[in-house]
């Protein structure tokens, strides 16, 4: 439906208020109708759920959301629980490494694939296939590989290299890096695809200009192409970031939080207490704490990225 043309608006002429209202509702009417599902999802689901979560985290509801108000009791218990505090520090450590390595390896592999090499399709599928397999079993395979007796370390020692130690899976200080190995194996492929799409979107003449300017290829990638891929990088960071915050399947399949609670993560705490322990209030309190930290990071960054300047990024 074509938009309100200028003449119609002027003919209306019933004072600035109606024009103001018309401006809010009728301008871009079709855009608003088209974006209605998004707005509904945002308001009802995301905002609604967050309020629901926060509300019931102040109650003592157990299996069903029905308990009565108990103030900050759940939070006091949460902060007193060592497993929760360890989970948060684990997530920060794992998250930092996972974000940096995924983005760096993703970009490096995308650059390699962008070099018009042979068998590109084969290489791309090899890097992407882990993304397709459900993590329950692939986690088990990694568990085998990194298991001190069954896996790499045991085999190497049998082959005579007795000094070889690779016991990260069962070593409390190193288990997070064992998670990282399996996590990168599963996640880097998709980030590479995303970045390759970004690289291929760059205008060919930029490359020619840089070559004529005598700028070496690696420098062109870093100083010219990378800043141009801002949109793709933002998408990748949000994708990897949300994967880190919601980390659950990888931990359950690979270490189940062990050894001890050395690889516990917040989402596992939320899931265990909401369903396993039938105490949704405690689970929701944990989830609210997670959302709070995310909000503190996201809101200022999003304001800077989308809202603030309002110009087309």
């Amino acid at each position, binding site marked *: 439906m074509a938009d309100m043309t200028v003449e119609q608006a002027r003919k209306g002429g019933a004072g600035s208020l109606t024009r103001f209202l018309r401006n809010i509702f009728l301008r871009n009417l079709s855009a608003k109708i088209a974006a209605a599902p998004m707005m509904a999802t945002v308001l009802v689901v995301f905002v609604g759920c967050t309020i629901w979560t926060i509300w019931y985290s102040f109650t003592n509801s157990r299996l069903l959301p029905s308990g009565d108000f108990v103030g900050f009791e759940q939070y006091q218990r949460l902060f007193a629980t060592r497993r929760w505090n360890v989970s948060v520090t684990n997530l920060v450590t794992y998250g930092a490494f996972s974000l940096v390595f995924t983005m760096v390896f993703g970009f490096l592999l995308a650059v390699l694939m962008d070099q018009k090499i042979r068998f590109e399709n084969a290489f791309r599928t090899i890097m992407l296939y882990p993304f397709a397999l459900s993590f329950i079993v692939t986690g088990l395979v990694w568990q085998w590989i990194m298991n001190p007796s069954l896996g790499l370390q045991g085999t190497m020692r049998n082959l005579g290299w007795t000094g070889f130690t690779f016991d990260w899976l069962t070593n409390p200080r190193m288990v997070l890096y064992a998670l990282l190995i399996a996590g990168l194996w599963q996640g880097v*492929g998709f980030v590479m695809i995303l970045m390759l799409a970004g690289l291929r979107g760059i205008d060919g003449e930029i490359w020619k200009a840089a070559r004529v300017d005598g700028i070496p290829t690696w420098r062109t990638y870093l100083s010219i192409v990378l800043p141009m891929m801002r949109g793709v990088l933002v998408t990748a960071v949000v994708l990897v970031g949300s994967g880190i915050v919601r980390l659950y399947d990888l931990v359950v399949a690979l270490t189940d939080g062990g050894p001890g609670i050395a690889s516990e993560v917040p989402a596992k705490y939320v899931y265990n207490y909401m369903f396993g322990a039938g105490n949704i209030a405690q689970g929701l309190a944990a989830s609210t704490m997670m959302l709070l930290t995310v909000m503190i990071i996201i809101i200022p960054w999003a304001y800077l990225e989308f809202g603030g300047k309002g110009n087309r990024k």
Partner: protein
Amino acid sequence: MSQTATISSAGPTASQDARVEARGPRPTPFFTPRKIVIYSILFFACLYFLFPLYVMITTSFKTMPEIRWGNIFAPPIEPTGEAWIKAWTSACTGLTCQGLSPGFWNSVKITVPSTLVSIFIAAVNGYALINWRFKGSEIFFTILIFGSFIPYQVMLYPLVMITRELGIFGSLWAVILVHTIFGMPILTLLFRNYFASLPVELFKAARVDGAGFWRIFFEIMLPMSLPIFVVAMILQITGIWNDFLFGVVFAGTQNYPMTVQLNNIVNSVQGSPEYNVNMAATILTGLVPLIVYFVSGRLFVRGIAAGAVKG
């Protein structure tokens, strides 16, 4: 007057003389340092990626005793395919012992509509956000991105209640709605950033020709979004095909996806797991997304090439 790079200080080496008589295409030896570096990094990357698959495939062709006593990296001594057959046709998933097959078509029934609906809505969102910016559209988008960080387990009960009020709980529509909701943040971001990278003149020219919101979307924007459409498809098909929780809770018993059978085979808490059947079952379940990746590889390149030409 000119300041071309001075000839390298070393005496005129052999390559210098050759350069003087240079003719035709520059001779590129087969082993340039650049190629060596590229292919060696790719080689080690492939080793890292393929190693678990090697273990999975060899294990899936071994018999249980051979797995229990043998070394997991050793290839199968007497390979048998019965684990695969069992996984597809006769592995026990609770009372019924029909392997993965019963759930296959249910998974297809869930994945195809969910993928298409979620991608379409996200594409419209991305398009509206970039080209038809209206009051508050950026705030909605920020909350949407924030939404992608909420652990999905937390939203289970509210979504159950929402779908119950809509009267679609326990039907295909419920699972399609849930996947559309969970896919929306990332997919909208994908499309939004992609449309932002298209030259703005395209959109302005269409507006000048009097094309409305939907005509521009279908006739100009959508055809150009093939590369990002492929990326979105890879993301959604993988996510939905491998999903267990939403399929089981929202789709209703008659639509249990294949992941329920897989989970029952692989994740039986009490009994002793049959590792070869588990491996075979996982690879079988993963086949559909894998085929999509390989096919999308071609689309991917052609789409991208089309995209690049526009520059």
